[in-house]
């Protein structure tokens, strides 16, 4: 008997200035750990959303998933901007939002990291991404998970090395496709497990926990109180 409890994501249309996009969503209600935006490859929403959104829900994240703007779009693109605005409108400030980008959504996620100071961003793709055009400042902690370094790895490494914001790149030698997909060959299952574990830890260490109503009122009452002590000078 399968004892895994799965939530069926709600599917709806999000309309924005430049058009509309289908979104899949799991809203946990109450006070979640945080909010997450999942950006999928074109045509992959149905295949990816249920697994990833349920995985995020297990760790307390209310999340939405959508297909990213088409490849080649400058910056995060209007669709990604609309999706982040959608989370903001739900009362989630940027620091309480984590972003996961898969396939073509990986580049969009990196573009978001370079433009919006969200809590944390993870990109998962077959090969290392090129730095965003114009080599902008990285604004959000970014984790790149790739099956192989690829041609852009040196430029990406150089760009990241000069950034004040923390980042990491992990590759899974011998795997093919996205490290998030378990192929059962050449360490694919291990890569899928490890990349998911790293993604969740990346978010948990950086996405600001959503405050409960009690935490919010306590913070207001003690806004001027800092932890006990002290500075020598």
């Amino acid at each position: 008997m399968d004892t895994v409890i799965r939530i069926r994501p709600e599917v709806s249309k999000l309309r924005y200035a430049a058009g509309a996009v289908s979104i899949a969503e799991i809203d946990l209600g109450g006070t979640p750990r945080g909010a997450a935006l999942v950006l999928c490859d074109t045509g992959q929403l149905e295949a990816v959303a249920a697994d990833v959104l349920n995985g995020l829900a297990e760790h307390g994240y209310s999340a939405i998933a959508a297909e990213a703007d088409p490849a080649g779009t400058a910056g995060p693109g209007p669709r990604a901007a609309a999706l982040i605005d959608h989370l903001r409108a739900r009362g989630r400030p940027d620091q309480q939002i984590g972003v996961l980008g898969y396939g073509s959504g990986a580049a969009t996620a990196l573009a978001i990291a370079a433009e919006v100071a969200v809590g944390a961003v993870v990109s998962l793709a077959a090969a290392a991404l090129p730095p965003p055009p114009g080599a902008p400042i990285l604004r959000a902690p970014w984790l790149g998970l790739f099956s192989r370094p690829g041609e852009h790895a040196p430029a990406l490494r150089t760009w990241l090395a000069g950034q004040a914001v923390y980042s990491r790149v992990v590759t899974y030698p011998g795997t093919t496709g996205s490290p998030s997909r378990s192929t059962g060959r050449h360490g694919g299952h291990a890569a899928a497990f490890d990349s998911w574990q790293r993604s969740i830890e990346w978010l948990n260490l950086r996405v600001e926990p959503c405050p409960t109503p009690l935490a919010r009122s306590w913070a207001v009452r003690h806004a001027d109180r800092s932890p006990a002590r002290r500075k020598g000078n």
Partner: protein
Amino acid sequence: MSEYVLDDREMPRFRINRKTMTDPAVLELERRRIFEKTWLYLGHETELPKRNDFVTRSVAGRPMIFFRDGAGKIQAWLNSCPHRGAMLCREKQGNARFMTCFYHGWAFSNAGKMVSMPGDESYGPDFDRPGLAGPAKVDSYRGFVFVSFDPDVEDLVDYLAGAREYIDLVMDQSEIGMRVVPGTHEYSVKANWKLLVENSVDGYHAVTTHQRYFEMIVAARGEIPAGALSRSAGIDLGNGHAVAASEPVGEGLLGRPLSEAGKAERAARLARLRERHGDAWVDRMDGSRNLVVFPNLILIDLVMGVLIRKIDPITPDYMEVTAWELVPPEDSAELTRQRLDDYLTFWGPGGLATPDDVEALETCQRAFRGNQELPWSDISRGMNKSTPSSSDELQMRVFWRRWNELVTGEKLPAEVHEPPAAFYRGRPSSADSVPAAAE
């Protein structure tokens, strides 16, 4: 009169009772009267290059988290959840804005504020949500971050006294700020912690204990310049801090010869530093120094490499040691490689110096089982001299007099010697020392 230190100025003779190395009651006194009362080294700011970087380590027996918070500010927190005590962070190092206790899930920001506690409705609206606890004081000098658990401790800058000058001599060696090389050397020694403090500023043992190292140097260079070991000084820096310092010897007494390109690069950097700080200061910089910052921080600059060493007592006969290398980050990759090679050849786990020292100290500790027949150790060398050298033992006596004062309350007068040679009084031509690199 102290039962631990005999300071006979008539003979003269300075002796330490070996009970100080073996008696658990002495270690307990040290914990209460030294480690709870002085400034203790936590780490260097350059170990945390990015915001939200952290390392974990122990200070005075306490597990600590050394953080650069989201605003870039240095923080030091006790690595213990205020809820039920579990360690918040079980990693050696990393990068995190938030730490969540794995026991019950309480979460804290790296600025020390509580951000989440699961099921908080079970505590009520007026429950006092605790932040992280930290030492009473945190302060830094040239990137060296110290903590003190005594809220009434004197200011760090006053505490460091004359040691500041020797920290400056190290930190001024880079035009952009000396940095700690990523990675640590951690080891333990079955010996009392004070034996390694003594050893770290002991020029007397170098040639005998490290004979093989010097043989290697002679083989690599052909010879060691005559008188290379004699132009030196042992100097009392106040507050228990002391240094064994030496004048420059060619391209340095120790280390393999640099490549021609390495020599040229080093000479060019020194020339630029001369323009910035003046000849007197750079001449001193180009010499070597073994510095003890009381009680347990060691800074050793042997020109070929710079070592930071933190010594932690665990039991009377067991210590843990952590060491790092400081480098000028503007050095080329090749010169950095040569410095690292020299560092590891001397101080590394398989080096030709540190393993010898560990062996020497462990034999001392084992031999202290004969305390009944041989209760005293002698560190009198150089008491009779007008100007002690680095192979004399003034440095150790300075440490021990301060130790004795804090542990027993007996304040022994400082030794009277002639001032060190003019060389050791050279100052920078301007007060433009480079601050430690920080984000």
